[in-house]
């Protein structure tokens, strides 16, 4: 099946270890099969590092953050502003259908990623940020955990495009 979308990279964030506030990068080096230079899941210091999984790089759609801020009309008070620096995923994207990319390869600038599994939200993030309802708000749209097939340097603004299987 051919996919026809195209999107781009908005933000890159990393943190040196579990629970430490994320910091934004103007560029990042991704290392194939390992992770992002300086990030907790490359260093083995992440909250979930003790549990092996595909987590070399994590992505989330800015469209999800916008939907969270919009809230759910039928559940007043659920609107939540989640800044890109707070969601603890590495890459914030626009125009990329992440839920459709499990098992698929796609390009971010010069880097090639492969969708591993849909990210599952955790109470840990909700507790960490003190935002009640965030866990439910992110169900089924919490982003994508990926492996890195081809490493390289990426920057905000880089195009994100699907690759043929």
């Amino acid at each position: 099946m051919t996919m026809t979308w195209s999107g781009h990279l908005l933000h890159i964030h990393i943190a040196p270890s579990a629970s430490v506030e994320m910091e934004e990068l103007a560029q990042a080096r991704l290392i194939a099969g390992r992770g992002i230079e300086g990030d907790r899941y490359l260093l083995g210091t992440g909250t979930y590092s003790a549990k092996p999984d595909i987590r070399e790089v994590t992505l989330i759609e800015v469209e999800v953050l916008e939907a969270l801020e919009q809230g759910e009309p039928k559940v007043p008070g659920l609107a939540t502003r989640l800044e890109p620096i707070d969601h603890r995923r590495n890459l914030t994207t626009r125009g990329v259908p992440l839920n459709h990319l499990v098992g698929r390869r796609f390009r971010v600038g010069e880097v090639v990623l492969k969708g591993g599994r849909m990210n599952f939200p955790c109470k840990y993030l909700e507790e960490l940020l003190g935002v009640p309802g965030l866990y439910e708000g992110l169900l089924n749209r919490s982003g994508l955990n990926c492996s890195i097939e081809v490493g390289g340097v990426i920057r905000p603004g880089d195009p994100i495009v699907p690759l043929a299987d």
Partner: protein
Amino acid sequence: MSPRLIMKLEVAQVRPEAGDVLLVALRHPRRPLLPAATAGAHVDVHLPDGRVRQYSLLGDPADRRTYRIAVKREAGGRGGSRWLHDNLAAGATLMVSAPRNHFELSAAAGRCLLLAGGIGITPLLAMAHALAAAGRDFRLHVFARGRAGAPLLGEAEAFGPDRVVAHFDDPPGTRLALEALLREPEPGTEIYCCGPAGFMDAVREAASGWPDEAVRFEAFQPLHADGFVPEPFDIVLRSTGATLRVPAGRAAIDLLREAGIDVPSSCEIGVCGACVCGYLAGSPIHRDVVLSPRARRDRFIPCVSRAVGALRLDL
């Protein structure tokens, strides 16, 4: 213990205080407001070598631009306070957690007696700010050997002579002063106490005639129970009344699964909260890092937490 965001804060100001204390003001380099704290809260300070030290926030909780802590140099301590004294200067950065509070003011509207021993004045100053702002009646009693060695006395005295009493005594004199102060339990009054162990013991003794719930102490809990040795315990199921024996080397969630109970789970290291369930009776040993102190009263994380004796689960 629930997780807290660790922030790289900037030292806005340091000032030496009486009693070999360094007063430190911290700000966030990028965000105008810090995570909110209630009076009595503390932060975890993460030292570069990985050690963690807890310090009460002493400033007005309404001021969210700055966290203020006071670090007493502990000559015989483990070196954390010495490192902070030697390395903190304006412009330095320090890894600091968002605040947590095990020493909350109660919601009751009664009078508060704040009893401060030495550097233990820090959370009580934050309480004095909160009580003053709420228009509540309080007295802050400051105990020290002498004026010259009493940290933050000037800040305390700014609340006015009607609200602040300083006591300069040696330990036997402090004991007598506390006995005189607490001889008669006052219905509706609550005592909040923080200070060195000997001081808190003296308060406990002097307040022995007071109801337990009216006397509260700040007691820092270890972040990680080192050397924890798991022991077998029993789970009793509400639905069937069945008892499951959890051996020392296995997790409660495994036994639940074997009994055919479908418990959702994800991380299985006590951080994600997916396997949370309720408990109805028993003495859990909470070993997760996700439940809040409040949730721990009736919730249980079976992938890592254990219990003493039999724990009745709402399953």
